[in-house]
């Protein structure tokens, strides 16, 4: 078992928090971080005891074209299947991928058991729950953005899962874009095909895994003596998608003006996470440059690879 994530320099504080929270419960599992940043940042992070991989170490033949074609966010996402492929090729029996904006709050042991025994594990955005107006709105939007959340991938080293990762990487090489109208939403929309392509796809039904703003208002997160709980099950990891620690009162930039105090989420969870991020150096890294930015803003529009990328 091995864990990994992919970040650019501005997410270094988030990954510090993630790795620390993961190690608290699973000190024996190595955590690899693919860091697409300048050399001195990679060295600084590696010096903290985090296993850092640079994108050029992952045997991606098309990396230069990728860096030229894609923005920072697109590149980070396109490297996701690459790190999975790389780690599986190195013979690890199972790999989990976690987005950098995740906080582990309890032992993941039940989840890791499922990952080890199935080719592919996915966490759906929604679990069965009664109908409500906000839920229907989210259901409609998920038709365009994807049924399964791409913030968590669990994969075991089987023939079929390796083939799936190779297919996913190939799709993201050229079509990692946000164009919901035409059926693209970065890597996530492609995952809808995973249950068709991988026979042994397992859908994680533990409500405590990968909780995020999309779960509202079906869930309430509360805190008791032993830790956080989601609707009576332990909260294993929370996905702070779209959360900005400089505006800690807002749940997410994807959830409009919804305030933490008005959501069903425990305010301590958000306050603690914001505090953790700030003490990990959020303000220091927030403006870290993306080293592969084009020489001038409209460059991508005029280069050859970009015109192939357009519809």
């Amino acid at each position, binding site marked *: 078992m091995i864990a990994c994530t992919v970040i650019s320099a501005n997410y270094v504080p988030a990954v510090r928090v993630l790795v620390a929270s993961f190690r608290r419960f699973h000190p024996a599992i190595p955590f690899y971080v693919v860091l697409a940043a300048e050399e001195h940042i990679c060295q600084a992070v590696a010096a903290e005891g985090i296993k850092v991989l640079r994108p050029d170490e992952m045997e991606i033949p098309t990396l230069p074209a990728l860096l030229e074609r894609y923005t920072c966010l697109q590149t980070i996402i396109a490297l996701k299947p690459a790190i999975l492929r790389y780690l599986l090729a190195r013979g690890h029996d199972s790999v989990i991928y976690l987005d950098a904006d995740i906080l582990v709050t309890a032992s993941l042991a039940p989840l890791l058991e499922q990952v080890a025994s199935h080719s592919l594990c996915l966490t759906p955005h929604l679990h069965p729950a009664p109908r409500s107006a906000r839920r229907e709105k989210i259901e409609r939007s998920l038709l365009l953005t994807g049924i399964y959340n791409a913030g968590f991938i669990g994969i075991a080293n089987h023939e079929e899962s390796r083939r799936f990762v190779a297919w996913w990487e190939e799709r993201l090489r050229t079509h990692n874009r946000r164009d919901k109208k035409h*059926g693209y939403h970065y890597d996530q929309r492609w995952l*809808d*095909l995973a249950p068709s392509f991988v026979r042994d796809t397992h859908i994680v039904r533990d409500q405590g895994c990968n909780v995020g703003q999309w779960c509202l208002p079906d869930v309430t997160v509360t805190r008791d003596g032993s830790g956080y709980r989601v609707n009576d099950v332990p909260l294993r990891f929370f996905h702070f998608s779209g959360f900005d620690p400089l505006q800690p009162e807002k749940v997410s930039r994807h959830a409009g003006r919804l305030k933490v105090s008005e959501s069903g989420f425990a305010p301590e969870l958000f306050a603690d996470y914001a505090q953790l991020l700030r003490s990990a150096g959020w303000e220091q890294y927030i403006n870290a440059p993306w080293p592969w930015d084009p020489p001038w803003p409209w460059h991508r529009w005029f280069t050859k690879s970009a015109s192939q990328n357009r519809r």
Partner: protein
Amino acid sequence: MSRWAAITIVSKRHLPLARVTAQSFREHNPVPFYTLLADDEQGRLDPTREPFALLHMEELGIAALKPFQFWHTELELSYASTPFAIQCLLRRGYDGVLFLKQETLVLDDLSPVFTKLAEHAVVLTPHLLRPPNRPDALQHEVRVLRAGVYNGGVVGFADCEEAHWFLEWWQAKVFRRCVRQVKRGYHFEQRWLDFAPSLVARHHLLRDPGVNVGHWNLLERHIRVANNRVTALGVPCRVFRFSGYQPERPEMVTKYNRHLTVADTGEAAAVFARYHALLMSAGYTEARKLPYAYETYRSGATISERARRAYQRQGDAVSNDDNPFERTSFDRFRRWFKMGGHPKAR
């Protein structure tokens, strides 16, 4: 011994499709076959002479039936009725119901499908079983993503709490809106099936290449015909779907792909010829001329698409026993006049 049933949904114009499906199904399966008429009989058919048991819309238990029939077009109504029809049969005491969309030809025994239904709440057929091996693979995958990962043409539901919960959820989704607007994520009733694996724990994805062969996977399934037996990828082909097939243009596989001709499909051409002959002998040409009951107001004036959508947009303001078919253009004029000529008056 479990009790099974199968069902399809058609309007009067498409009755021959249901006849062919029913006959071919009953030839191989000792299971009752129902047809929901998403239409009104209008004295144009004799249920005793049909090869299926006839169900009417009134039997589905839809509270707002008239509005439901009004705000969907002919095709949308037959698609939107799917979860209602399935649940109606489950409530009649069947242990499992297999839904087959119109334009289906059953070529073999479907007991492997019913066996799966005995163990699971929902059985689905994915459009693709592996990444397609063709030059336009990426475009094809995106087409599938935009139309729905699972095909709405062959779906099975067992009589259990989970299946009923999902059916009711599905009904709520398609009750008011069952349109094809792929840019907004809607593809009739089919897109909503994408949620099934995440909402139903006991679901099963049927990976038999012989079930649900259609234009979306025809070229990858290597259809062979020998001694009147049809095989797909070497296994018996059990359900062949003719989605978008137009008997008026027998050389085309489907209206959804203008590049795919029957001649391209190799031995499958024999299956198309057989289906064409069956449709013709089931009275396809005559049935085309039958009227659709919900095409017009009671006064005989045609209901425009705009009127349907406008009524749909009224949403919860529509009461269950409202009968929009009673309206006449004079009613609209009167309402418009009462509201002082406001352009929003409908």
